[in-house]
């Protein structure tokens, strides 16, 4: 057995190395122990809405995989801009702050009005669902079909409630107007609940909205047309896809809720980001997610996992769509 020789130089070197290790250990452990505290999630809409319901259903399963709670903060206003501006301007890019947004209307917003930050400084990494927009009337409306609406729209300009001007569903109905010659006047009613209320109470002739929110409105409304595939059949009154009904070739007008993160957080803390992604994916593997969605009166048919690549493509498509319809959505 070789005897360990310890001289002054070895002792000093070992001491230095041990000190360096001691100082570095908390950092190493911190990375390994991520998350060591709860995560803050910025939601750019009001509590009680579709994003709230969706977030709670998803995070109730994800939190067990990640080992930390998700604390939502609601920052509504200016068609979602407030939430994003606050997230990008005030939240630390440390992977403890995420944003849960709707890639449809909120990205469309960037095309209509550029934000103060560079939109490449954040990205979505976890798509939760894809939810086509739809056109619907109140339960007591005289309109019984989309054909009646189009015919009436050729005689007079119909008022159409929408949660915000820059919304995929708004583009869907404007495209229908272009294709059929019907005239539609978009009326922004500030949020999904008000948009449903507008159609139900007759403030507007009919409304367009994300179909998940329309489904949760129950029998107060009747769906007339879906701007994409009707995956839920009877829940949307078996309404037809716009392309089938009017022989059009419109891309699906989707809302898509997804978790986003600062680019700097993913770049500076790749280990944390990796854990977020892996646990996000594991959440989708868990059958409890479906149960959670059903319990929250969500629409499990719309659950649709997507990663960085799919989200990136969605964002690119939305920006292109926004550029195309910018004059109509801005009143320019």
């Amino acid at each position: 057995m070789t005897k360990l020789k310890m001289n002054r130089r070895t002792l000093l070197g070992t001491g230095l190395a041990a000190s360096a290790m001691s100082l570095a250990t908390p950092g190493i452990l911190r990375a390994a122990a991520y998350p060591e505290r709860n995560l803050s999630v910025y939601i750019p809409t009001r509590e009680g809405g579709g994003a709230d319901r969706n977030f709670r259903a998803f995070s109730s399963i994800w939190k067990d995989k990640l080992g930390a709670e998700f604390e939502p903060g609601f920052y509504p206003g200016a068609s979602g801009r407030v939430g994003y501006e606050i997230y990008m301007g005030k939240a630390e890019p440390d992977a403890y702050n995420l944003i849960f947004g709707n890639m449809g209307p909120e990205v469309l917003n960037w095309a209509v009005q550029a934000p103060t930050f560079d939109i490449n400084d954040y990205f979505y990494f976890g798509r939760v669902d894809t939810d086509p927009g739809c056109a619907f009337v109140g339960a007591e409306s005289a309109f019984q079909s989309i054909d009646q609406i189009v015919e009436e729209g050729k005689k007079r300009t119909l008022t159409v409630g929408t949660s915000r001007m820059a919304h995929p569903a708004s583009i869907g109905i404007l495209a229908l107007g272009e294709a059929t010659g019907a005239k539609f006047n978009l009326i922004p009613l500030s949020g999904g609940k008000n948009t449903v209320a507008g159609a139900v109470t007759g403030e507007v002739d009919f409304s367009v909205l994300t179909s998940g929110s329309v489904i949760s409105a129950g029998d107060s409304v009747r769906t007339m047309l879906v701007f994409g595939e009707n995956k839920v059949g009877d829940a949307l009154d078996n309404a037809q896809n716009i392309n089938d009904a009017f022989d059009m070739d419109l891309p699906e007008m989707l809302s898509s809720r997804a978790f986003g993160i600062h680019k700097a957080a993913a770049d500076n803390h790749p280990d944390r980001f990796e854990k977020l992604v892996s646990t996000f994916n594991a959440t989708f593997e868990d059958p409890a997610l479906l149960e959670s969605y059903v319990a929250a009166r969500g629409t499990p048919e719309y659950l649709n996992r997507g990663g960085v690549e799919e989200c990136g493509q969605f964002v690119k498509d939305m920006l292109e769509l926004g550029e195309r319809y910018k004059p109509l959505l801005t009143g320019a």
Partner: protein
Amino acid sequence: MGDAAIISTVFLETIGYWWVIIPTIFLGLIVGGIPGFSAANTIIILMPLTLAMDLQMGLVFMVSLYCAARMGAGIPAILVNIPGTAGAAATPLDGYPMTKQGRGQQALAISFVASSLGGLLTTIIAIAAMPLLARVGFYMHSVEMIVVMLFGISLIASIAAQDMLKGLIAGFFGLMLGAIGTDVVYATPRGTMGFLELYDGVPLIPALVGLFAVSEAFIIIEKRVILTKKGQEAMENPSWAATFEGVRDALTRWTHICWTSVIGLIIGVIPGAGASIASFVAYQQSRTFSKTPEKYGTGHIEGLVAPESANNGVTSGTLVPLLVLGIPGGATAAIMLVVMQYHGVSFGPSLFQQDPKVGYGMFIAMAVSYFLMILTIIPLSRYMSRVTTVPTIYLAPMIISFTLVGAFVPREYMFDMYLALAFGVVGYIARRTGYHVAAILIGVILGPLLETYFLRALKKSEGDIMVLFSSTLGNILWVALVVSLVLPIVFERRRKKKEIVIQ
């Protein structure tokens, strides 16, 4: 089982939850009284607890909290000029002057009785006339709501009566502040001065606590106590008699409680309208039809009864569109919708066929809560009113720190604390120079709502201003508005003529 049988069964079951309702009432009073807290954010915070409860208990808990928080907001408004929520913004107009006169105990008792009876009455009306009330939203669209807003805004002119120029300047200043933020159609920022925190408009709670409470704290620090000399004498020997006097004052004005709470109920059932509109409109109407309009703002009992009855009338009103149409009438109703959906309840036209116990249960829980509030809260007015005897060297810093925290809570922005201080300075200057802070506040609260409905109506009509006179109900409301503006002038002239004749 018939409706009557369901109602009586649910009533008995709800009474059985008294042990949930009573602690919740006290919790509601606390969260309602703290500026920035509300029933909505408390239900959100306690959501895991609510979801763990069975359906009926969760429902009873949320409804009791909602009612008590609404009533609780009036307590600091009366005692220290801090309205806990925008719905209580009209309460200090007459409540706080009563306190300064040493009648804080009476004012609290009046507020409690008006709130409880107003809430109880409108709940009963709501149960009886739910299908009818649900129709109100079908007729009150943007054009009609413009006129309703103008009813509230016309209060500026009433307040300005003592000094018309200063009153109108204050009102216009408030309306200009209310125009800050992104526009409701294209979300274009206006007057935000680069502050992100102003994109969603001037936040109400910092404006409210700044203009009323912080400026008041700056004023009262110049005195030893907030009470007048006469008030100090009155508060020297507190007794139950003052509480009974308040109860009697409120009960003798039962007709006033009835019709002002019905104003609250009707405004409450309109989706998107809320307690702030209702309390100002009720106050304005109360003043218009009063034989002594000049007493409003000086500690007049009707001036306290009207907003308190109305904002509790809104509470039952907001449940009507939720239950009958599936549309939440306000923020708290929206949170309740989420919780109830977790329990598998679907709101909307079929609710009363599928889950009649839930539908009636919410109103019964409300009625039982208001009834228990009468018994539990009124005796507290004697003790609560003692806060007014605290020397201002302690009270003023407490008010400032308390309200700054309140300004921070809703959005958790430091900016909102600075904004409350800035509004405090504005309020202080306004008071010292004879401008009425209430006129500024009415502009800040109702201005953005008026603009929203106005732009919506214009967008619907593609820019045709004549849309304002396009509906029959709207035109009737226009006439009523003109009448309510002209009537006080006619009454005033008559009164002066009479005085001349007598002389």
